[in-house]
């Protein structure tokens, strides 16, 4: 009475083996995680790309996009949502994390990269 079942030893070996392999490989086979959360160093600058949708010069929406987002699909989705008179400006945004105004983050630096209009793409020099 009270003995462990026959499958207990192989079960423990597979369970622990999976935890070790997923961490070392690394593989994220949830719930077998690779435990990489916050493991890579962060730099002092936060950098991302932003699309700003404008209608007759007025900003109607802005959202973060990937670094290699093409103009055509961006303009197509903006036109579908906000109407034919929209332009999309793509900005590269950089924020120095230690740059603060009291408890608030200081405004980021934005560089216009391209303007997407129905007439074509205007890249900034």
């Amino acid at each position: 009475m009270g003995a462990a079942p026959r499958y207990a030893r192989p079960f423990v070996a597979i369970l622990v083996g999976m935890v070790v392999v997923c961490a070392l490989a690394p593989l994220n086979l949830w719930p077998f995680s690779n435990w990489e959360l916050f493991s890579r160093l962060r730099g002092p600058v936060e950098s991302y790309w932003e699309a700003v949708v404008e209608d007759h010069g007025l900003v109607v929406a802005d959202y973060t996009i990937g670094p290699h987002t093409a103009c055509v699909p961006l303009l197509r989705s903006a036109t579908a949502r906000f109407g034919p008179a929209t332009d999309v400006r793509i900005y590269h945004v950089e924020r120095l994390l230690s740059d603060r105004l009291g408890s608030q983050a200081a405004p980021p630096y934005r560089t216009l990269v391209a303007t997407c209009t129905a007439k074509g793409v205007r890249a900034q020099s």
Partner: protein
Amino acid sequence: MHRVERWIFAPEDARRLAGVRIGICLLLAYRLSAHDYDALAARHVRFLPHFYMDVFAHMPSPDLASALQTLGIAAALAAGLGLALRITLPVALVCGLILNGMLNSTGRVMVRDALLMLCLAVIIAAGRAAGDVWAVRAPNQMAFGERYGWPIRSAMIVIALAYFFASVQKWRYSGFGWVTSDNLRWILYAQPHPNGFALFIADRPLLAHLFAAGALLLETSFPLVLFVPRLRWLLIPAVLTMHVAIRIALGLDYSAQALTVLIVFVNWPVVVDWTRRTLAPTPAPREIAR
């Protein structure tokens, strides 16, 4: 190797395993009730299936999410009571996996409930032993044996490895720089709206280094809880404090992970016996004299 095996398969009080079963099941029921899965299913048109969620062609419908949530909570509560464990525990696990899989398929994989699900899998593997005592239909008798010990110690090993590998990844990708650089300050500053506690640490480089060193030391040394039981009194509260600090400073909810640690490492029979002794009416001196 034999010493490790002897430790894992050492005899244990059946009530300890039952305590872990009850705790893990109640925690799962709470976690499943804490999210609005049908709203998530309705909102997220973008489905990025993670791992096993590939079996779904698209995000499960709000109705299916709602049904799984209800079923999962009911199964977890029934398993907590020790009812039909061969059915209720696997049902609770499957519901938990799919509902967590939905959260993980929105573009970001969440670590927070992973240990809870792994410990639930261990309870399932324990089989009938998990319901021998402290269950509705179980005879309320004392039991002791190998079959009650290995699931608890397997769960302990998984938890210890989780914290250890969290530190291994920091050493691997960042090394000492994780402590000596301003990494933690940038993490705290990078939030959209850092609160006063986060800014208090981030504005003081020395304090940020101390917090980073403390976290890395704690995670690296956590496996000692397996070999030096006395250190559990230090490392378990320290880990719980770390999760509370992360919750306050970064707004990240690791309560499921912290509570899983507590449930697995607390010796529940000792707690229950101590509580009974403390609450039992003390006999009057005259009764003792008789």
